Structure formats: structure tokens, C-alpha cells
């Protein structure tokens, strides 16, 4: 897969975070980006579009990121979901790992970390 062919879904209730992540991805060469504003929307959009990678916040209205991760992985056990949260507590980390998160990023997210994740995804 070429980097320009990758589709990424950004799920965060903050438009600031979605914008910053989209800018980082764009600089890497990824422009196929889908936005979701909460966990519920993320699950619905994932089922319809099946993006190659998801960046998922944890604290969100309607459905938390952990709940959305569980549903997405239940629908697609190969789904690659990166949890990106300010709340990188042991409890959330354990929950994310148990539910099969691809990675866990502590916010504020750094571009080098996003690049590493894309590289890891391409290698796999």
C-alpha cells in the first residue's frame, strides 16, 4: 500500500485536535481523512468506510473511545485503532490493550509519533 492510498479516520470531539492531526497526516502525505465527532459516529462510519487506521480519543460524549474501540474490533478484528488521549492512566492503558488497541498516544500528540505509527502500519 502506498502512503497516499491510506485512509485515516480521526475521532475526537475537539475540532482543534482533528485539525492538528489532519495537518500532521497531510505533511506525511495522507490526505484521505474522515472525521468523527464522538464514539457513536466513529463506529457507524467505520462500518461503512472501513478506514485503514483510526485515531480515537477516549473522553467523548455519547460513547467513549474505549467503548467505540470494543465495537469496532468486534466488527473487524483486524481494525487498527490508535488511542490518542490526554488520559493515559494505567486504567485506560489496560483497557485499551485488552480491547486490542494498535497503539496508545499520550496527548499532546507529536508528529514523530504519528510518523512511527504510519511506518509500523506500512511494515505490517
Amino acid at each position, binding site marked *: 500500500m502506498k502512503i497516499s492510498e491510506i485512509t485515516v479516520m480521526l475521532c475526537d470531539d475537539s475540532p482543534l*485536535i482533528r485539525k492538528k492531526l489532519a495537518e500532521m497526516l497531510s505533511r506525511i502525505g495522507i490526505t484521505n481523512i474522515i472525521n468523527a465527532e464522538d464514539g457513536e459516529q466513529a463506529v457507524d462510519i467505520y462500518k461503512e468506510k472501513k478506514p485503514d487506521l483510526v485515531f480515537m480519543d477516549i473522553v467523548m460524549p455519547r460513547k467513549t473511545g474505549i467503548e467505540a474501540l470494543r465495537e469496532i474490533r468486534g466488527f473487524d478484528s483486524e481494525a487498527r485503532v490508535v488511542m490518542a488521549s490526554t488520559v493515559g492512566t494505567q486504567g485506560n492503558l489496560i483497557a485499551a490493550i485488552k480491547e486490542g488497541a494498535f497503539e496508545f498516544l499520550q496527548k499532546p500528540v507529536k508528529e514523530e509519533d504519528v510518523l512511527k505509527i504510519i511506518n509500523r502500519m506500512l511494515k505490517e
Partner: protein
Amino acid sequence: MYTQLFGHYLLNSGVIDADELHAALTAMSRIKAKLGAAAIDAGYMTAEQVEEVHEAQHTVDKRFGDIAVEKGFLTEEQVRSLLSRQKNANLVLGQALIDFGFITNKQFEDALFDYKKKFSLIDGESEEERLENEMIQILGIDGMEDRDFYAEYILLFIRNLIRFLGDDFSLAGVAKNSTISMNYACCQDIKSDAEWHIVLGGTERGFVGIAARYAGENLSEPDDYTKACVGELLNLQNGLFAVNESNNRGVEYELSPQTPEDNLMMTVPENGISVSLSFSFGDIRIAVVKK
């Protein structure tokens, strides 16, 4: 990645693999750190000295602390201090990995040293305690219930302001037992055994100013995007506070989604606190109230 979290530092450093980390994280709730791991973490003993005490325990029916004191590795006071640190999350994780045989005491010592060096963590509690005591005096909350919570929370808030917005602000005042108002604000609740209502806001200029600084953009109106930026700053503060509490005390906090509020009037009770700060562009305020 997995920044500030020791377990994931170990994973990323190649000291352990994902299965080992998963096993140790799952086992953490059932164990507490032993004195040896705590002594390494505190810098009181080397891994070699810990092993020496373990060897001695095979032949003498004595506790780790007693033998370490006899050998001159620890003082009685250090043993008491270590006993209170046994719930530290990094220590418990290290202990689980040692217990499973995934790493040795020596590997734990080396990894912890590198981790602290990499993330510039304050080694030992004295410096941190000194800052907290200063904050208690500045805020005038000595004798107040939950004073340590308030001191830690506001100290972190100030650090985050410096880190993400800049250091061109001053502490303008502290309010308790009074009614305060903000033109624009964002609210979020954090919950462990107790629940706290946190409000970050200010005058229009202050509110828009911190949003613009945090986003690194030219913002001029308190519109939905501006409110989302302040909401994210508040979320970052509370998230980092929750991470610290999880790592240092084993306390897990849940955060609610942030909500914006315009023309907010609120009462700060006796057991709450409000701190106002003046930036060059305007005034902001943070209020923390126990629910």
C-alpha cells in the same frame, strides 16, 4: 509514544515485549511493590545491594528492611519512607515484571534511570514537596481539607500554562467562599472516590487569548471553535493530572466531556478554590470545587 508511562517506555526500549507488558499490567491490581524495587526507584540502593539482601534472606529469617538496615544500606527512616511508596504505579509494574521473571533487578534499575533521565522527572520527592508547600502558602489553603489536592492541581495548571501558553502571566488573586463570574468558560468533572467540578474561563479577551495561544492560531471571537480550544486545554490539564495521580498514587480518575458555558456565575464554597491569572492579553480564572 506511550509517553510518561514507564511500562510503555520498557516496551518501546525493547526491554519487554507486548505479551509480557499485558501480563504484568493485568497482575498489577493483585500485587504491591516490594521494598527492594522501591529502594532502587528511590536511589537508596543499587540492584546489587538488593540482590545481596535477597541472598541473605535465604539464610536468615528477617524482613528485607531489617537486613538492609543491618548492612548499612538503608536507615530506619528510609525504610518508613519506602513503605509509603509501595503503591507507586511504576514500582508496582516493575515488581510485576520482576516477579514474572521478565526482567531482573538490574534491568529495572537501568531502565528506570534511563526513563527518568529521558523524561526529566524530578528524582525524589523533596523538590516536589517543597513546591507544593510553597503553593499551599501562596493559595492560603493551609489547614484546609484536600489542601494537597488543590496544591498539586494548581501547581500542575501553572506548569501547563507555562508549557503550552507561555510564562507571561501573574497570579492575580485567590477566591474562596465567594461568588465569581466569567464571560466565557468551559467545565469538566473529574471523578475518583470524590468528584470535582473544574471551570476554566475568563473575560472575553482572556478566554479568546488562551484559545489562540493554545491553538497557535489567530482567533478573535469566542465562537464554537474557540470554546473547543479552551475545552481541550482544560481536558489536557485534567488528563495530565489524572495520569500523575494514576502513576504516583494508583488513583484512577474518570473525566466527563467538556461543556462550554457563557456568562457563568458560580459560588465557590469554603472547600473550593478559584485562582485568577493575568496574561498580557487578558484575565483568566480556574475554579475547582468538590461536589
